[in-house]
């Protein structure tokens, strides 16, 4: 990743830029899909969101700021696009039902088959029930970003991040406990 960081952002030719972009997407496709799964339950919306994130990453490629880790930068763009993304069909944005395996593995024509651990599947479900801002905080926290980095990405104070994480964790623990009792 360090090597990638060294030359990333310094585009000299069109083909350089294209290969940088392909490498960026390849290395971060998992992260992109995590954001998409957390923010969209509708398969059609998910495909559109993946496309939109990829477009914005392509557009922002030259403006990469080397003071951030590439993964943090990708996450920030993906979260910004996901939060502001226009959902076509609100009727399918249910938060009550448990997302089935298909919802997590389908993701469009580009996905292969993926069977997720039950706890991860529940995590996606419970994160999906959170508010937009809380989802972003939780995703960054789960990626082991520091409080300072989360605060920078969100544009809020570090103390607010710590308080928020504590509250969200308590909420998620409660959801897991309730789920197990059922």
């Amino acid at each position, binding site marked *: 990743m360090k090597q990638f960081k060294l030359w990333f952002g310094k585009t000299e030719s069109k083909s350089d830029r294209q290969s940088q972009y392909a490498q960026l997407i390849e290395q971060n496709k998992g992260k992109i899909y995590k954001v998409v799964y957390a923010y969209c339950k509708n398969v059609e919306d998910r495909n559109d969101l993946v496309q939109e994130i990829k477009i914005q990453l392509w557009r922002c490629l030259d403006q*990469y700021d080397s003071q951030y880790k590439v993964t943090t930068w990708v996450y920030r763009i993906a979260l910004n696009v996901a939060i502001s993304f226009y959902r076509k069909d609100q009727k399918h944005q249910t938060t009550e039902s448990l997302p089935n395996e298909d919802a997590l593995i389908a993701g469009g024509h580009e996905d292969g088959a993926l069977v997720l651990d039950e706890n991860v599947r529940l995590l996606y479900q419970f994160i999906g029930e959170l508010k937009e801002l809380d989802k972003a905080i939780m995703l960054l926290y789960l990626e082991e970003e520091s409080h300072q980095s989360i605060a920078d990405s969100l544009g809020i104070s570090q103390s607010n991040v710590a308080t928020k994480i504590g509250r969200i964790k308590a909420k998620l*623990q409660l959801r897991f406990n309730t789920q197990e009792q059922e």
Partner: protein
Amino acid sequence: MMNIDNMQTIWANQNKPLQQAVNIDSESLNFIQSSDAKSIMQNVMLARIIEAATFFIIVCSLWLYIVENLALSAPVISAAILNLFAIVGLAANIGQIALIAQIDYAMPIKKVQQQVYKIRSHNIATAKLIILSIPLYMAYVFFGFELFFGVDIYPMMEQSMLITFAVVAVVMYLAVYWLIKQMSLEDKQQPSWAKTFCCFIAGTECLRMNDVLNSFANEQ
């Protein structure tokens, strides 16, 4: 029982299978790198450009009419009033185009979402502008008659009729003032009908974006 403190480890367990399962085909990447790939904001930008062009044509046409018929007549004054509204509409659209061009998704989430909300709530601002022009409905009448029938109806109107129209305009102004005050998504005390009305104009996504901004505000 799931221990919430192990979440990060559990989350990291999916990294490898997820990375392996997702295939990004080169065809889709090539398409994105071509100029054919349009982002959602580019489509919004196109809509604003069309809107700005429409306002520009209206402004130019009204100016042309004013210059060609320069006199202190009701249709000319009406055209000048309508022109003011069209100029405000044009300026608002130019502001929107500049805002869309400035959006940088790599900026902190709070800042980007504030910009996106301003873009999404544009329809409310446009609706407010149109509603604000309703009390000046006589300007539409005077100018419309002149435009379509070539008749200046002002000299034909009786004094009592003019007074009635003026009183109706004042009452309408009070009603419009009240209505515009209700049309604010930022107001948490907003009655449900006003919320529904704003949703109808700006769409539910605008309401969702407002909720996002509210959750940022609650963090302060």
